């Protein structure tokens, strides 16, 4: 170039690039540098031959080394299964109480049960296990069908009022709206509410107690503490599945709602059910 610029200080020509009067010296690169650059090109070509690289119409070249990231994942999953196998075997052979008593096994079962819970149980019992409206809270110490790890396991295995499976719990409370009068319903509802708190109309408590003794003690017991064999709730405590005021109780006396829970053992298998039972029991320690 005729307008070539030579830097005065160094006597070296410049590249013609200029920024605010600062010019770039045209110093040659070291030769090894460009050789290294060529080597990287050769390496890159070799790499695309050795590893999956070139896109074809329907897939990509597989590479002569046969590497696959999917295989890597599968191998890692298989390794994880093997690592889990000893826990799974122990969980299969032990009772849920034994599992809950062993620190390492419990930790494993709680983690596995928690994962299974999030997939299968949150739809009704909610992510915090407090239960959607009308579904029991699994954190507290009030258990309709018993809150030991074994009893929880039985509930999950066979379900509640899940008629298609033998061994499920079937008991239901009769609709007392067809058996006792409207007044008696009001009286007994007020009496039941009075067992755990103040009521609006105290006059109804005494006749209500009589109605209770005649109709309810068979299942809920003389002291209204309930019966876990029958799934009859404790009526004296602070926990109410369908509401604690007289109106809510009256509705439940007239035409009771009954929860239904599926039996899970067919779908999840015994090990998973045990893990779930240990997890649920760990939420609040059962009863």
């Amino acid at each position, binding site marked *: *170039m*005729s307008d*070539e610029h030579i830097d005065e200080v160094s006597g070296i*020509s410049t590249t013609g690039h200029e920024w605010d009067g600062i010019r770039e010296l*045209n110093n*040659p*690169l*070291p*030769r*090894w*540098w*460009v050789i290294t650059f060529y080597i990287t090109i050769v390496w890159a070509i070799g790499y695309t031959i050795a590893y999956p690289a070139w896109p074809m119409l329907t897939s990509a070249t597989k590479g002569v080394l046969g590497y696959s990231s999917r295989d890597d994942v599968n191998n890692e999953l298989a390794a994880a299964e093997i690592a889990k196998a000893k826990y799974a075997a122990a969980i299969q052979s032990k009772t849920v109480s034994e599992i*809950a*008593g062993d*620190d390492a096994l*419990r*930790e494993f079962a709680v983690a596995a049960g928690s994962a299974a819970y999030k997939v299968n149980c949150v739809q009704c019992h909610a*992510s*915090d*296990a*407090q239960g959607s409206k009308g579904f029991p*809270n699994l*954190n*507290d*110490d*009030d258990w309709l069908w018993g809150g030991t790890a074994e009893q929880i396991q039985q509930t999950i295995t066979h379900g509640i009022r899940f008629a298609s499976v033998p061994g499920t719990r079937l008991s239901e409370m009769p609709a007392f709206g067809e058996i006792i009068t409207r007044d008696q319903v009001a009286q007994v509802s007020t009496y039941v509410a009075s067992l755990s*708190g103040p009521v609006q109309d105290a006059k109804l408590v005494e006749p209500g107690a009589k109605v209770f003794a005649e109709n309810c003690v068979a299942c809920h017991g003389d002291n209204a503490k309930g019966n876990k064999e029958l799934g009859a709730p*404790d009526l004296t*405590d*602070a*926990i109410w599945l369908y509401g604690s005021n007289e109106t809510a109780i009256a509705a439940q006396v007239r035409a009771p709602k009954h929860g239904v829970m599926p039996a899970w053992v067919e779908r999840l298998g015994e090990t998973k059910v045990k893990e779930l039972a240990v997890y649920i029991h*760990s*939420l*609040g*320690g059962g009863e």
Partner: protein
Amino acid sequence: MLDNTQIERLEAEAVNSAKVRQPLYAPRKKIFPKRASGSFRRFKWLVMAITLGIYYLTPWLRWDRGPFAPDQAVLIDLANRRFYFFFIEIWPQEFFYVAGLLVMAGIGLFLITSRVGRAWCGYTCPQTVWVDLFLVVERAIEGDRNARMKLDAGPWTARKLVLRVSKHAIWLAIAAATGGAWIFYFADAPSLIGEVFAGTAAPVAYITIGVLTATTYTFGGMMREQVCTYMCPWPRIQAAMLDENSLTVTYNDWRGEPRSRHAKKVQAAGQLVGDCVDCNACVAVCPMGIDIRDRQQLECITCALCIDACDGVMAKLGKEPGLISYATLSDYNANMAVATAGGSCSVNPSLVRTGSGAFSDKLAHFHIRKIFRPRTFVYMGAWSAVGLALLYSLLTRDRLEVNVLHDRNPQFVTLSDGSIRNGYTVKLLNMIPEPRTIVVTMQGLRGAEMSVVGIDLPADRSFAVAVEPDRLKMLKVFVRQPVDQVGSATQTFKFRVEDKASFETDEYTATFNAPEIVR
């Protein structure tokens, strides 16, 4: 028809005409550094012995930590996420100590550079140390500069082949030992070395040895000064750390110029002559292959071997040492002003000397005061501040810690008797290699008691928990408060942990949630 002379000549030139074409790539010029001797060379041998000694021997030092921890003095245990350094054990959350040390190393580098220039490059950089080591081998096998140049230029004979093969074999052995030493920092060295030779060590160990062997051999044996000049960012950065009061290797042309190989003849002819006899000893010893007399250059790593070489020549000539010396730019400029009579003439060496031939007392000399200037005080202050903060943190750090995670979902649970329960994940960190019994106690929260999942004891306000050595223990704790004791929707209380044997304690302030309206 026109003849040749009648054709009009145009003013045109090819853009890539050979006249202006420059090579895009420059071949490397081979450097054959001559052996130097002198005080700086001796100092460099010492630094080399210390740094290589630290690198190769550290993994083999033992340190007894009892039966529950490894006995290697310096160990980076990646699998268990522990770092052991003599009496210090670092957990991953304490990695800031390492970050702090790196900050100190960075500021220390600024400090050293602003005082004595590129001392890091010239004396302690692994590239410099290993190149020095490789040069020792090269000289031992092929001889010093002249012999090596002759061998290199000569034809391939059996002797050349034997010399070259043995040189590269020893280089490779050193490189392999260097790569090999690295892995011992990451596992128990005595057992790992057996595994390495038996072929049973982990693949990553062999890959690491392979990579570091290759880089050591390539950088130390083959590339040498190319690494410093073209690959390292530090020569570019360090300019920001140097100022006119930084000591750096300087050719004092105020006494050296005009240089002459025939001083007596020139002097006899009545011309000026400086101390430099243009013997090129300084160029011959330079591992970077540069001429320090061309002034301060990016390539100069300030290894000071040219000072040794020049001082040797000056001693033979009966002149004062220091024609090449550590000097500051301000002193150099002052002396240049003396030698050039304030810039009014070219260098006149007679101006720096008195009539008797001794140096004039107008000359500036380095004074130790120049080491202490605002810039170095700032670096020193920052360096010391980080160091003191780290030291304080290290001396007062906890070896017993408690961390608490409050259950958020649900925040609280109402129990059948109306009482309120909150759940917590309590993490006990036993950071010493001894098993301990830790007592976890609740402080505050009227009437509340706790129970621990997996501990079959009635609810209480205190539990004793066994924690394995050097481990974290996770407890699921339920805290329950009777309904009539619940003060407000959010209360705070403390989890206090204590090791009854050592009296170490730690606390965590947790919150306890309750519904807004409690019956």
